[in-house]
Structure formats: C-alpha cells, structure tokens
C-alpha cells in the first residue's frame, strides 16, 4: 500500500516569507496529524484532524500557522510569516482509527524547512 506522501521534501525560505506543505495520507485513514520536529528533539504535535474536523490544535501557533483538511483527505500546513525558529522537519502522519491496529500511526518522509 502507498505510504503517507508529503511535498515538498525540502524548502529554504527567508524569514517573514510564507511556505505551504502538502500531505496525502494513506487511503482510508480518517485521522491525520502534523508534527514539528526540531533538530535534536522529539516530534511535537501541531494539529490533529479526524476526517475534516480539528481534534487538537492546542500547540499550533495560530498567529502564524494554519492547517486545513477541507475534504477529509489531503491536508495543507501553512506558515506565514516564517521565523528562524520554525526551521524544522514537518511530519505528516495518518492512522486508520479502527480495528486492533487502529492506533498504529504511519509517518511520511517529512518536509525539511530551513528559514534563513
């Protein structure tokens, strides 16, 4: 089965510019996550969707970050304006949500952002 797809893989932008990352989860997975992984740290949850609704966005810096999953399938994460401290890998993940393995979460390869 195809995995979680993310693009772009790499992006370098200047501070105060904007950037958008796209994610297509595994087919049929209702739950989609965006994580931020800063170098040397564990991934931190930014936002979690169940279908097209937001379940948890408590750690999303809403003054500059936004995310949507309009049709309950693919999702976009936007940063505007970017700051130096936003340099990180942005991981998208998805979960089936049903059955005995419903809680296994599958990760994409990540979108590596460098803000200069």
């Amino acid at each position: 089965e195809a995995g979680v797809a993310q693009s772009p893989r790499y992006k370098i932008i200047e501070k105060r510019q904007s950037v958008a990352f796209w994610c297509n989860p595994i087919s049929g997975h209702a739950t989609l996550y965006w994580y931020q992984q800063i170098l040397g740290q564990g991934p931190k949850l930014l936002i979690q969707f169940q279908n097209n609704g937001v379940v948890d966005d408590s750690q999303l810096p809403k003054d500059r970050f936004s995310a949507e999953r309009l049709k309950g399938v693919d999702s976009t994460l936007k940063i505007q304006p970017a700051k130096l401290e936003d340099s990180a890998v942005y991981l998208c993940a998805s979960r089936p949500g049903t059955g005995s393995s419903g809680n296994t979460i599958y990760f994409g390869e990540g979108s590596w952002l460098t803000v200069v």
Partner: protein
Amino acid sequence: AQSVSQHNHHVILSEAASLELGCNYSYGGTVNLFWYVQYPGQHLQLLLKYFSGDPLVKGIKGFEAEFIKSKFSFNLRKPSVQWSDTAEYFCAVISSRAAGNKLTFGGGTRVLVKP
C-alpha cells in the same frame, strides 16, 4: 502534566554490544506504546508496538521491548547491535486519557554504533 521521558540523550557503543534504551511515561489509563527509529536523513519508522497481551514485544531488526506497568516503563533492547543500528530512537505513547488518541513522543536517544 502527561509526558514521555527517555533517559539518555546520546549512547555510544561498539558493534556486538548490547543496547538498552529507557522510556518512562506518566500517563494513566490504558496505554499503547511504540518505539520508532529514524535513520540519518530518513523518516520515522515503526520498530515495535504494544497494545495488550504479552508485555515482551518483539519488533523488527532484532529489537524487543518490555512493558512494565508498575514502573510505567517500556524499555527497548537489542542483544547485539550492528553499525547499521546507528540512528535516533523515539519512544511514544497513546493514552486512553489523552483526547483524540494523541501520540506523544519522548525527546529521543541518539545511538552511535562504532564499527
């Protein structure tokens, strides 16, 4: 606050040595436990998981982990490491008490295996 703690930030060892990485969590309720590995420049991959049943879980590449409920621990082990095990290892937890089945990660442990 609910958290996942990994005791060592960095581990350096020689090939054929045994590896044990500690993981403790502070969640109550029913937990699902995971170990993920991230090889240099690659994405997170699932090593093993515990949902229920036998607390000794075997994963890929010769790794295993033991869930000790009384100690809130889920330590990862490998009897004999190889150079290719050089990677960063993350423990992660889903708690039935966390809204939306949120997956929370520990800070990671970087493992360097010297040839």
